[in-house]
């Protein structure tokens, strides 16, 4: 079987806390606490989670915008965490990210042209007519018109900005696109268009996608496989349909039932979690979900971290209910 394009093995990212705070002992923000997954070339993989789940940090760690504390990030089998700066520069051409908030991911002082051209200028030293033609090409691919080229970001709508972001990301012919909340800042009527467009783009250019979102509907719409994250760990993973239709982990169940459904009759069985998401500085002992879990078994959930159980359908869950 061919190697997956991207594979994470036990990736961890801890942010050290400084001394001045409660308890008097130094600690860490365990933003990513041991994540493993793989994506095959041409696939779409989704990471779903709420705030504090660590999903954006995973994206940053893959791109080495933050340095992983531990673990491996394998690209075509090679661990890029061990790459030198020069090798990393080359890597940058392979993976690009589309950032979360289109309104702030562009330099307000740069025109659309300059923003899209930047990667080309840095990596290929393009200039003048050649550069201009390439940018025009990219604009066409994302469905923007030439008249947008010299506008400033604040003169564009959210959807248009998002497309500029995509054009910028595509300029170096990457193989992997990481999309961080690609539709959250968009209006409903535009969201579907954007996702269709991304789908077409994927087929046309043979891209691999890593989708990151808190919006389960978006993930369900676009991804073949999904990983559900909670406080830095993937607690359930597998084929999207299976996971969302028959969630196994209590958190996944709560997440699925919490999504507000636009229909007249609201679901009867709502799972309401008590309390708030714990802070990543004080991750609960044992199974990190036990403080809010409605299906807690007992002391075992408080003391021992569950290991991964694999099912026949290819999905996996980290929960004592299934050990």
């Amino acid at each position, binding site marked *: 079987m061919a190697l997956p394009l991207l594979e994470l093995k036990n990736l961890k990212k801890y942010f050290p806390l400084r001394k001045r705070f409660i308890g008097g002992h130094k600690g860490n923000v365990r933003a990513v606490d041991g994540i493993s997954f793989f994506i095959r070339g041409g696939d779409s993989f989704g990471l779903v989670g709420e705030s504090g789940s660590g999903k954006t940090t995973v994206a940053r760690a893959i791109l080495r915008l933050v340095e992983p504390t531990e673990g491996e990030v394998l690209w075509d089998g090679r661990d890029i965490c061990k790459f030198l700066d020069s090798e990393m520069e080359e890597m940058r051409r392979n993976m*690009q990210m589309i950032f979360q908030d289109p309104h702030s*991911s562009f*330099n307000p002082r740069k025109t659309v042209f300059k923003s899209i051209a930047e990667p080309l200028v840095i990596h290929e030293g393009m200039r003048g007519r050649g550069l201009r033609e390439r940018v025009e090409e990219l604009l066409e691919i994302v469905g923007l018109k030439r008249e947008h080229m010299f506008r400033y970001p604040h003169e564009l709508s959210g959807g248009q900005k998002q497309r500029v972001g995509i054009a*910028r990301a595509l300029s170096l012919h990457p193989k992997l696109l990481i999309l961080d909340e690609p539709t959250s800042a968009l209006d409903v009527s535009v969201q579907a268009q954007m996702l269709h467009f991304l789908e077409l783009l994927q087929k046309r250019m043979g891209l691999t996608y890593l989708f990151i979102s808190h919006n389960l509907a978006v993930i369900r719409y676009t991804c073949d496989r999904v990983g559900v994250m909670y406080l830095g760990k993937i607690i359930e993973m597998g084929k999207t349909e299976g996971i969302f239709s028959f969630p196994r982990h209590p958190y996944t169940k709560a997440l699925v039932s919490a999504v507000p459904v636009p229909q007249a009759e609201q679901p009867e069985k709502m799972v309401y979690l008590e309390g708030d998401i714990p802070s990543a500085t004080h991750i609960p002992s044992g199974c990190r979900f036990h403080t809010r879990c409605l299906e807690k078994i007992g002391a075992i959930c408080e003391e021992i971290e569950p290991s991964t159980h694999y099912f026949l359908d290819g999905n996996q869950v980290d929960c004592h209910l299934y050990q």
Partner: protein
Amino acid sequence: MKEILSPWERWKEERESQIRNFKLILYTLSRSPLSVIGFFCVSVFLIIALIGPMIITYPGDIKGTIHMDQKLRPPSSNHPFGTDEVGRDIYSRVIMGTRLSFQIGLIIIFIAMGIGVPLGIIAGYIGGWLNEIIMRVTDIFLSIPGLLLALAIVGALGPGIKNAMLALSIVWWPGYVRLVQGKTLSLREESYVEAAKSIGASKLRVIFSHVLPNCTSPIIVKASMDMGMAILFAANLGFIGVGAQPPIPEWGAMISTGRNYLPDHWWMATFPGMAILITVLGFNLLGDGLRDVLDPQSRI
């Protein structure tokens, strides 16, 4: 299907948005009557500074010439602002003083920015101990009242306009460090800076291409306010006697001499004084107006 545009058309296309933005700034400025007044005062000041030599009536009176027979004449058609104690035309001297003040202010601000802005960006972006060192040195300078520090420096170097400008530049640069460091700190966290890094931009590129251009708004605002204040401080030093030395027609020095002839020969001190008032007020109002417009950027 690709059209070939002439260079002129291409230039127009590229600048279209910038022109639109500029018009928006002017429009917003014009909404505030005080800003308009400020703008007007500053414009008058700048025009006079530029065309000064063309509109003075007694060019000789700027430096050396004395007409003892004309001394201490009140304002008249010949001498709209009157004459001073050695018979020089005050109108001509005030006009030339405008040009002088402009030069003084500009030099001070430029030197201050030239030192302060790079230091601020380095401190803000690189952080760590370099930041600590730069900021603490800045703090030391900021903790000494400006005029006193300037006096001390001029005292050590000796009176004269060049030394006064040097002293004031030293007083002014820490303000820019603090401003720019703060702005850089916040800009560092911006999404587009992260995006730039993800496409492989080097540190240098990020600083010059992304951070610096976005610092210009607060710098412009501060510079406009500072122009007025720098001119005022220079006049202060001139007034005390350690700045411009007579016979240089610097406003502060003129007031200093004119003080001795109050209240009978009021015109000697009043006209330079009014010039300072209008100039400093104008720059302050303009600076205020610019701040409302540039920082933050508001759109409806």
